Structures are given as C-alpha cells and as structure tokens.
C-alpha cells in the first residue's frame, strides 16, 4: 500500500450489528440477574467486590501477567530491528503509539496482543512464527493482533469475563451453602429460596457463557476484517492461518489408484466427517471459517464488489 490517500473503512455492517446485539443482550441478562439477586437478598456486593478486585488487577497488569506466564521477553529495537520496524509501520497505519514488543522462544507458532488501550499495548510473537511465516504473512498476523488493540477487544472481553466469573463464583458458593446450610438461617424462607437462586444462577451462567463465546467470535472476525482493510491484503492472513494450522500439509502424496477398493455404496458423508479432524487446531471461531471469510473478502476486494 504505497498510496498516501486516506483509506476508507468498509465496516462489515452485519457483523457489527450482531456484535452490538450480543453485547446488549449480555448487559440485559446481567442487569436482570443483579436485580433478581438483590431482591432475593444474596450478598451481591461482597462477591462482586472480591471478583472485581481480581479482575481489576488482571486488567491493569495484563501485560506483565502475560510476560510472566508465557515466558515472553520484551525486546528492544536494537535486539529485534526488523520486527520493531514492521510493528512501527503497522502501528502508524492504525494511528496508535508504538506498542511494547516481546518475543517468546518456542517453536510453536503463535502471536498475541494485550493491553487495555492502545497506549498500554503489548504485542508478542513466538520465534516459531517468525521462522515459519514470510514477511507478508507475519505482517498480516501482527496487523490482526493490533486490530484487537485498536478495537479495544481486551476491554470488552474483560467486562464480559467479569460477569461470567462472578456468576460461576456465585454458583460454587451457593452449591456449598446448600450442602452445609451455612448462611441459611439468616433468611426466614429457608431452603426453597436458595434453591431457586441457585437454579437461576446456573441458567444465567450458561446463557452468559454462550453470549461471551459469540462475542469473542465476532471480535475475532472483526479483527480479521480490520486487519485486512488496513493491509489491503486479506489473502495474506488466510495464507498465514493455512500455513500455521498445517492445513496444506494434510494434502497427501498418495495416488487415488492405490486405494484398495472404491466402494460406491459406502457413502461416508464427506461434508460431516471432515469436521472433527479439522478442529484440532482451532478454538473459537473455527480456523476454516475464518480462512473462508478472508478469501471472500480478498475476492470482493479484487473484483470491487461490495
């Protein structure tokens, strides 16, 4: 992208709509839940306080926590000049300050970003991914990670996770409470009330979990989309994902004629069977689906269809 004209962002409107809908649903779910808990006399403020402190610590220290837990080492521009230059170029395109750069010494190809806002961002790559990917592909991967920072995904997910963690905390507490009847005496309506609260908590926990999963999925597609818009080359990330996942290496050397017997009657639903084996690498959303969407975007950019 040598042109200096300002790049116009074409947001995936459907995706943005679904994302906001999910966020509103999540907010609504927990607002109703909080009201319900207050009405039933559960010590909400106490539990909220504990979980809140935990998450605030995590939120503000995420970069240091990541560095500690993954063995990532922060590197200076002198130590990794090429990587620094690449990240600087990308950060400029996103109009964000230069993030901290870290390298993890492992053959496993991976990359991630963290930080509550662009000013406190950290981008880490493994030595494995540096070796495996071409410059164009690595640039696409880092572009995707910076898109997470630019879209403030850590903040959105931190809040969502806070609510889910809170519910799971409450669920465990209520469970032990019912077993041993700890604070049961405080309220006069006894066992029936707490059972009710417990059941509602379970339901809220599962719905919340589903919504958070949907939200991460949309954020992931969103980052793919933003990254592609910034680089103008959606195919680069698709190539990188294909390479990392080892998808391409699965195509066999074998000749079809060596297949023992071709059983025309033995129809294995080809469409269904592949599903399980492909999920080895992918978490959420499936890698295949992401690659598919990126290829679609590539095609749309190529032919100018929108």
């Amino acid at each position: 992208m040598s042109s200096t004209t300002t790049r116009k962002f074409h947001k995936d409107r459907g995706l943005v709509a679904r994302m906001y809908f999910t966020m509103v649903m999540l907010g609504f779910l927990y607002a109703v839940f909080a009201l319900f808990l207050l009405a039933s006399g559960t010590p909400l403020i106490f539990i909220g306080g504990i979980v809140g402190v935990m998450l605030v610590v995590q939120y503000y220290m995420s970069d240091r926590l990541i560095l500690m837990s993954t063995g990532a080492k922060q590197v200076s521009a002198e130590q990794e000049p090429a990587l620094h230059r690449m990240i600087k170029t990308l950060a400029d395109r996103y109009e964000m300050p230069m993030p901290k750069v870290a390298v993890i010494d492992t053959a496993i190809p991976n990359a991630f970003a963290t930080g509550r806002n662009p000013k406190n961002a950290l981008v880490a790559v493994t030595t494995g991914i540096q070796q495996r990917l071409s410059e164009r592909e690595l640039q696409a991967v880092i572009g995707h990670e910076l898109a997470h920072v630019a879209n403030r995904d850590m903040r959105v997910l931190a809040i969502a996770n806070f609510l889910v963690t809170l519910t799971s905390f409450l669920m465990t507490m209520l469970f032990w409470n019912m077993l041993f009847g700890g604070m049961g005496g405080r309220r006069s309506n006894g066992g029936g009330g707490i059972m009710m609260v417990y059941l509602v908590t379970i339901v809220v926990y599962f719905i919340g979990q589903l919504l958070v999963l949907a939200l991460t999925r949309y954020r992931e597609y969103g980052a793919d989309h933003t990254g592609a818009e910034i680089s103008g080359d959606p195919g680069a990330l698709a190539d990188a994902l294909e390479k990392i996942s080892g998808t391409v290496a699965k195509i066999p050397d074998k000749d079809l004629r060596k297949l023992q017997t071709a059983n025309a009657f033995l129809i294995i639903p080809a469409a269904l069977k592949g599903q399980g084996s492909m999920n080895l690498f992918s978490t959420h959303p499936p890698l295949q689906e992401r690659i598919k969407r990126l290829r679609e975007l590539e095609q749309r950019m190529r032919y100018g269809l929108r």
Partner: protein
Amino acid sequence: MGWFGGSKAPKSDWSALSTVIKAEAKLQSLGEITPSRRAGIIYRDSDDNAFLQDIETELNTALYQGVGATKTAFEIKDDDRGMRWIVLDDGKFDDLVSSVYTVGNAITANGAGDKLLAAVFELYFTGTVEDNTYRSSLCTYWIYRYDRRAFYPFVPTGESEGDRDRPTEARLGSDLRRHGLIVEKSLTEWMGLWGIPF
C-alpha cells in the same frame, strides 16, 4: 453450513456432480478460466462384468441414442497404472457434465459401481483478467470421487507421486467451494492422479 457446523451429504451423484456447472460458469464470467471441454472417468476394469467388457457399444447406446442424448465424443484409454479411462470431449460444458453422469450411472446400474474411482475435469486458468488470482496458464484438474461424492482440485507439478502444488490446491479448494462446488472437506482424502492420459 448451519449453526452447528453440519452440512448434508449430497443425496445422489447428480446433485454433487452438477455443482461443477455453476462453478465453471462463475469462474468463466470472472474471466479466470477458458471454457472447458474435457473430462475423464477412471475405473478398474473387470473381466466378469459384461457391461465393462462391451463398454464401447454400451457407451454408443448411452450417449448417442434416445431422448436427451448429448452426443459427446468419447475415447477409451488405458493408463500405465492398470486403470481404464473413458475420456469425454464436448464443447458444451453442461452436456459434458451430463455425459459424465450418464456414463457413471450406466456403469453403476450394470453392477460395476464399485469399480468407479473418479471423474476428472480439466480446467485452464488462463488469466484473461488483469491481475488474475492464479498464475497464468495453470492447468488444474477437479477430481470427483464417487465414494465420497465430493470434488477436490488437483494441480500436478510433475509425473511422479507427490508432485503437486499444495498451496494452490488449498486456495483453489476454498475458492471453488465459494463458487458452489461441493468440495471434499477432509484434505487427507485429496489423493492425486498422476499421469492423467488426456
């Protein structure tokens, strides 16, 4: 693909095979490929099957007589790996696909369905558009496996086993799926056919 990631297996060879018509037309309209006219059906010959023993006469009947006969030209060839090919040639691509179906169907109906290995279509990416997706004049094969009822692309780079352009195939696979072709999901099933005799 639905909400739970599942999709239905095609009910018949025709419902899977016919998707190639749409994909070919789409790629032509985008200026990525030149019109395609050749296909081959590969099968294991059998001495105890009367239909296969008399294949030329049978194909003459199937392709040249009766209503809806496509009159596709055909040729029988043996490859160097002990297999027999029915090579079809037709200037009209949908007739070519119909003929591929007719031949496979006739073989199955006469008790030799388990001898059928694959149908192979030959497609040329010539890049009539500027900045085409694939390198210019790339010869690709789209292999339809009868036992899987699905297609996959095959781009050989040489005559010996294992010589294939995997990145291009992976990419082509997702492009073709988007253009409506039923593509084999499990990449480990994308077995090659080296030395295609047409």
